[in-house]
């Protein structure tokens, strides 16, 4: 019987790999498909639009695309964080819309204080979602479908089914939309900063490591003493917070909010952007920075449709097909697993 695995010679041989080859292996690993695909897809769609209508590649086009991408990006970032833990948040777009309405209601009176207070409240709503999921162990899609209904009612009731215009302090909030850096409005820059922040959270912190571990293999995480409940609550709280920022972006762009106005249809674009951004529907895989490209791609869909001569009406159809195709292409399938 030989001690094959532990002999010093063996270890040394493996310890002294070709440095160049090792670097190549690591490089190849970093540049895996879901890392480079999102920017590639984005630049492909950009190319299509650019050929059809070069005006869209100028400052004007950039401004339009990033403006409509901003709320999608923010909602998608929260969704990506939730998907990363293996759950889904169907209520995040409703949180954004409800948030937009209470921003519009409170900002005239309380200004910045209102913004902060509302963001805190929305973060808490997300955290409650996460806590119910963690402690009652219900399926997240059903749970958040329920909260989606409650939030729809909340949006209708708080707005009295009317459009709420921001009268006082209007400039305070619309500045986020009107101030542009490199033709890109502040709302989108907020999304970019949030993406970098969430990326760093996932990559460099213990909490982020735990969230991804729960998404990759919850049983394994639980038995490694990973606080799985905490991870879920934080992911959903982040989703609430990001949706709140999306609500702010909606109010900034429109100067008003209503239950059926701008931003009332963010759920699917948000999920699509997260998925196009390389987030896995089965959990454990998310790169918030790539979600930026995902959101831009999704925002470009109606623009591209128009540039190619289709009406803007094709939007829903395209989003629906997008989701199905992307998920069908990226789902990881294990033999014999039961898919519900």
């Amino acid at each position, binding site marked *: 019987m030989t001690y094959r695995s532990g002999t010093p010679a063996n270890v040394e041989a493996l310890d002294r790999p070709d440095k160049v080859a090792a670097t190549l292996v690591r490089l190849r690993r970093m540049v895996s498909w879901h890392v480079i695909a999102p920017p590639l897809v984005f630049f492909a769609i950009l190319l299509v639009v650019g050929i059809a209508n070069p005006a869209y590649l100028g400052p004007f086009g950039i401004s339009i695309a990033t403006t409509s991408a901003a709320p999608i990006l923010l909602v998608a970032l929260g969704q990506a964080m939730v998907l990363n833990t*293996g*759950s*889904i948040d169907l209520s995040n777009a409703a949180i954004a819309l409800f948030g937009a309405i209470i921003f519009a209601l409170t900002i005239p009176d309380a200004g910045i204080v209102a913004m902060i207070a509302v963001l805190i409240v929305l973060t808490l709503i997300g955290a409650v979602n996460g806590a*119910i*999921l*963690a*402690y*009652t*162990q*219900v*399926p*997240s*899609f*059903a*749970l958040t*479908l*329920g*909260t*989606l*209904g*409650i*939030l*729809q*009612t*909340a949006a*209708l*009731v708080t707005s009295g*089914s009317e459009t709420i215009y921001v009268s006082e302090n209007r400039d305070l909030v619309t500045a986020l939309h009107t101030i542009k850096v490199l033709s890109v409005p502040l709302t989108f820059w907020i999304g970019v900063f949030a993406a970098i922040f969430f990326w760093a959270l996932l990559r460099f912190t213990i909490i982020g490591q735990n969230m991804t571990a729960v998404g990759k293999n*919850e*049983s394994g995480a*639980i*038995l490694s003493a990973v606080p799985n409940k905490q991870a879920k609550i934080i992911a959903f709280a982040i989703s609430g917070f990001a949706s709140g920022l999306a609500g702010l972006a909606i109010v900034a762009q429109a100067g008003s909010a209503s239950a059926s106005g701008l931003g009332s249809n963010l759920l*699917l674009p948000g*999920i699509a952007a997260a998925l196009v951004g390389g987030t896995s*529907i*089965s*959990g454990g895989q998310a790169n918030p920075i790539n979600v930026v490209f995902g959101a831009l791609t999704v925002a470009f869909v109606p623009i591209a449709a128009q540039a190619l001569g289709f*009406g803007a*009406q*094709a*939007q*829903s*159809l*395209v*989003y*629906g*097909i*997008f*989701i*199905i195709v992307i*998920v*069908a292409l990226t*789902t990881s*399938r294990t033999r*014999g*697993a*039961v*898919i*519900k």
Partner: protein
Amino acid sequence: MTSVMHEDGPRGAAGMKRNGSASMRRLFAEGAKGPIGLLAALVVLIVVFSFLNPRFASIENLQNVLFQVSVPLILVVGATLVIQMGSIDLSIEGIMGAAGMTWILLSPNTRTMIDLGLWAWLIALVLGMSLGLMTGVIYAKLKVPSFVVSLGTWYVGLGIAILLYGNNSLPSLTSEALARWPTGLTLGLPHAFWLAALVLLFGLLISNYTNLGRGLMAIGNNEPIARMSGMPVNVYKIGAFAIAGLLGGLAGILATMQLGSGSTDIGFGQLFVVIPAAVIGGTALGGGEGGMIRSALGVVLLIILNNGLVLAGVDPDYQSGVFGLILLFAIIAVAWPERGRLKVAK
């Protein structure tokens, strides 16, 4: 001596059966979670609402309730088949939009000068079924979780409706006969309800008397065993979604007829009636449980609740909130006894 026991299954039952009291026990066990509980809740609601507003118990209002019940009743038959096998269909609102819009544009209306008569029905129903078929094939063959596929189908359906609607004027039904048909009464009951009742009967037949229906129950209970014993699991799965799509199309047509004009949002809010109704009817989201009658009672319960609240002066805006809350409580009540330290909740 207590020996090591198997994880599932009521072990006492064997002994109970032998001493003869099992049939009684079973009756009560099923009664508590089955129709008796639901019926009791229904009676309580009816009594309370009758006190709050005498108009509630009027013949007109009851006919109105049955009229409102029809569309979700048709939908819940398909949804129950899908949930019984442990999957979920979120696409009904989109399918309703696509089929309803298709139907009205091919029937006598104010926009297109086309009247295909029965062909309009057929084309709209086939469209609904194809969308369901698409969901089912992608779910069963490509192994994509059903909630994502059907979410996609929802928007595909909605997109089709929006494209058909275009930028033109609102299509309204011009045929008086068609517009009045749903509200017309036969034996005191609205035609829309008769249609729904017929669909329910069809659902009962499928669910209780065919290989498909029984196979879906088996899949929901234990899919690996179903595969092992040679059931065509994928065919059944696709079949369930196809039927759900077909019924979604029918519901879309009926709803369009009831409204008298085409709308892309014709299905708005139905998801919040149908899924909570199936869940409170005892169709656990995990699959393998529940039945058509119970789901139907769930629908009636929710519609009566909504109708009663509106008559009691509650704003209709509260509808989705109330139904959302009911869904929340229903799924938590189902999941509560099943909690465990190592259970994975996604």
